[in-house]
């Protein structure tokens, strides 16, 4: 059902939309907000499914001799570790970006709304095939995350492996379609006055990650296709012990040799920047420039446009961009880095990423310190703090590993839990809380959120540190049984699994309640004192065309100084000083 088109010559505002914000049906919707919510909801459900496997695997490890999962352990490992990235961490940020990017840049829609619908449904279908493939037949090997490539199944490829390979291609296609769409939207549909330099930092993170995905995802697609061609027609060329096949596996398919593992962090870091900015109620502050004597200043030539003005916003955008680019340098990664800590090019590449992330953290701390008195504490800020804690824990862990020297490959898994899985998860929870008024029209429950924060922080730390301890004791990744000192580590990790599952359940229930409430709410007028960026100027939740009124954008904080202004919830009505209800 198409919306009523205004007749030619009518230049007035379109008539008021009906009260139900969910408007069109979900399955044939081409509205970016509905699609974003679909992705977020699906991702949360899949998070629960994938994380539920963890305790079962942990129990198998700890119980000597008894078979909790038995012969299914390899496929459950594959499901668990590949699924976290492909079914949760990637898509939830895609969903948040789909919903929030047009709001942040002041656009009424995405550039290609129906392409986004295609991407969402292809993703849902691909996720179903992924699960089906893992459940139908035992797929060979540990999948994309392991140290060995998918092993050629004895007796030829089975249905499960066919479905999994097909699902990789579908999930990659969905990511590619969505990334191109988001990038195009950000490049061409910004509102008047919003230059790229004034774009909010979450949008910057999304742009940077989308640009990186545009290069990284085709490599994954190409390698999946090669693997499929090889396996499906009966060959074993990609498993032969030739150098060529090994390289193709490492660069194209191995999840931790691919840039995606780090690219996931970039929109998360961008969201964290926005959370800090909103809490501090000022743009990201830069460290004060060194004082230059006045006479000297006049003699210096003006600095090129890229360098000035050196204020925090541009620095942060640059850091996000650099992070995305350095994630692409993961292609110099070698799987030997799981054992050896120092390999020149690989270490330099990943350290560059860490430097960019560290710069962002410094900017956040600086901003909060400068804002001091007027910081508005929020649960989302606590989530950001938790993410920083995880980063610090990861850094300390690498230091300890460098000092200790010898360790099993489970240590690498521990680091991955902390950084690749943990940070995007916690920041996603934080982002859901932070933007809940715009996503759902109602804030998420603070109690549930606080509990989820503690559970997810504790769970991630337990998982990360637990698996690292097991690694220091000599455990190898994806072992089937734990012996001796490893058991302590795995026991801690088991507690972590349970805690994370708990956090997921809390968040999922809360979000489900909020989505149900969204269907029936009348939109609230925007409260311009809530934040500095454009999405806070939209009603809660936004109507079909996103905005009823917009300010002229003159800086990276368009709503600064506008706390007293009010916005009408319905178009066509004058803004009044009384809050519209």
């Amino acid at each position, binding site marked *: 059902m198409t919306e009523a088109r205004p007749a030619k010559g009518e230049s007035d505002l379109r008539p008021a939309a009906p009260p139900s914000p969910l408007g069109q049906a979900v399955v044939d919707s081409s509205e970016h907000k509905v699609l974003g919510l679909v992705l977020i909801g699906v991702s949360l459900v899949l998070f629960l499914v994938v994380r539920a496997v963890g305790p079962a695997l942990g129990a198998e490890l700890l119980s000597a001799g008894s078979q909790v999962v038995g012969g299914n352990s390899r496929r459950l490992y594959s499901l668990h570790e590949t699924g976290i990235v492909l079914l949760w961490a990637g898509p939830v940020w895609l969903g948040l970006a789909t919903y929030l990017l047009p709001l942040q840049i002041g656009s009424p829609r995405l550039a*290609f709304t129906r392409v986004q619908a295609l991407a969402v449904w292809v993703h849902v279908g691909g996720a179903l095939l992924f699960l089906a493939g893992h459940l139908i037949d035992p797929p060979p090997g540990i999948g994309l995350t392991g140290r060995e490539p998918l092993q050629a199944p004895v007796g030829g490829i089975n249905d499960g492996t066919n479905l999994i390979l097909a699902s990789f291609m579908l999930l990659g296609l969905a990511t590619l379609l969505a990334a*191109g769409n988001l990038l195009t939207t950000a*490049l061409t549909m910004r509102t008047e006055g919003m230059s790229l330099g004034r774009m909010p930092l979450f949008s910057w993170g999304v742009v940077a990650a989308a640009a990186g995905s545009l290069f990284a*995802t085709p490599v994954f697609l190409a390698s999946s296709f*090669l693997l499929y*061609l090889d396996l499906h027609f009966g*060959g074993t060329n990609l498993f032969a012990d030739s*150098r060529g096949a090994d390289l193709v596996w490492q660069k194209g398919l191995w999840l931790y040799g691919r840039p995606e593992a780090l690219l996931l962090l970039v929109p998360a870091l961008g969201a964290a920047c926005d959370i800090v900015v909103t809490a501090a109620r000022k743009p990201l502050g830069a460290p004060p420039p060194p004082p230059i004597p006045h006479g000297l200043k006049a003699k210096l030539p003006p600095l090129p446009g890229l360098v000035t003005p050196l204020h925090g916003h541009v620095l942060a955008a640059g850091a996000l961009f650099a992070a995305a680019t350095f994630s692409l340098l993961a292609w110099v990664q070698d799987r030997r880095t799981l054992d050896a800590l120092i390999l020149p090019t690989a270490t330099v590449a990943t350290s560059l990423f860490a430097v960019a992330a560290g710069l962002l953290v410094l900017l956040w701390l600086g901003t909060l310190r400068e804002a001091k008195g007027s910081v508005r504490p929020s649960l989302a800020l606590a989530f950001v703090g938790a993410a920083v804690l995880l980063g610090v824990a990861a850094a300390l862990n690498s230091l300890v590993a460098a000092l200790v020297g010898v360790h099993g490959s489970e240590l690498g898994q521990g680091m991955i839990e902390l950084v690749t899985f943990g940070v995007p998860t916690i920041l996603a929870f934080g982002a859901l809380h932070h933007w809940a008024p715009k996503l759902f029209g109602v804030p998420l429950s603070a109690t549930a959120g606080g509990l989820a924060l503690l559970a997810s922080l504790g769970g991630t730390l337990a998982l990360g540190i637990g698996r690292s301890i097991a690694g220091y004791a000599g455990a190898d990744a994806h072992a089937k049984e734990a012996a001796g000192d490893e058991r302590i580590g795995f026991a801690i990790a088991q507690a972590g699994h349970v805690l994370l599952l708990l956090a997921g359940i809390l968040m999922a229930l809360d979000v489900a309640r909020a989505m149900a409430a969204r269907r029936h709410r009348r939109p609230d007028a925007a409260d311009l004192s809530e934040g500095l960026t454009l999405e806070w100027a939209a009603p809660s939740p936004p109507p079909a065309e996103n905005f009823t009124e917009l300010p002229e954008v003159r800086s990276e904080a368009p709503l600064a100084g506008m706390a007293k202004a009010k916005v009408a919830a319905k178009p066509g009505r004058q803004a009044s000083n009384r809050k519209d209800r």
Partner: protein
Amino acid sequence: MSVAAPMALPPAAEVLERTRSRNAVVVGTALYGLAVLALTAALIGAYTAFRSGTSPWPPEGVKKENYFGSLLLAASGMLMITAEWLVWSVHHGVRRQTAQSAGLAVMLLAAMLNGLLYTVDESRFGAATHAYGTIFYAFMVVAALTQLAALAAVVAGIIRVAGRQISPAEPQLVRAVSIVLHVAALTWVMVWSALYAASR
């Protein structure tokens, strides 16, 4: 389907919005096209990886002819020129030349697809016979998909030109069509350079 009356101009805000969204089509198509070229480059990377680790290369039993490859290369060049001709003709409103260039593009794409089928038929090895076979078939499938996409784009373009939705007043969509054509041509050029030019 000829519209005799002059086009009624839509209100100004709508024009700006449509211009911006048409530019979005061009930018978006360019970005997706870049992704496709990156995919081909990844396959080329895999090709060089296999080549560096296997000898002899190409393996025994692979014919060393490059007749069809060169034919397709020539067709790719012609396709790129035709794409630019198409854009020119729409910009200048010469509908007859639009029809000619679009028709030529369709013929060229059909010829390229036919040539791909021949190349695969003449190859005498399967996708899993050896590593060369796997990457060869991957190249062929990717090239065929880009050409099919280009075909669909040209047909859609023809329909929209006939419906006066692409015209000298709003020519941006044809630029998007030309980008798809260029991507299809460039993909084959990249495949050719790996398979035929750098085969030893």
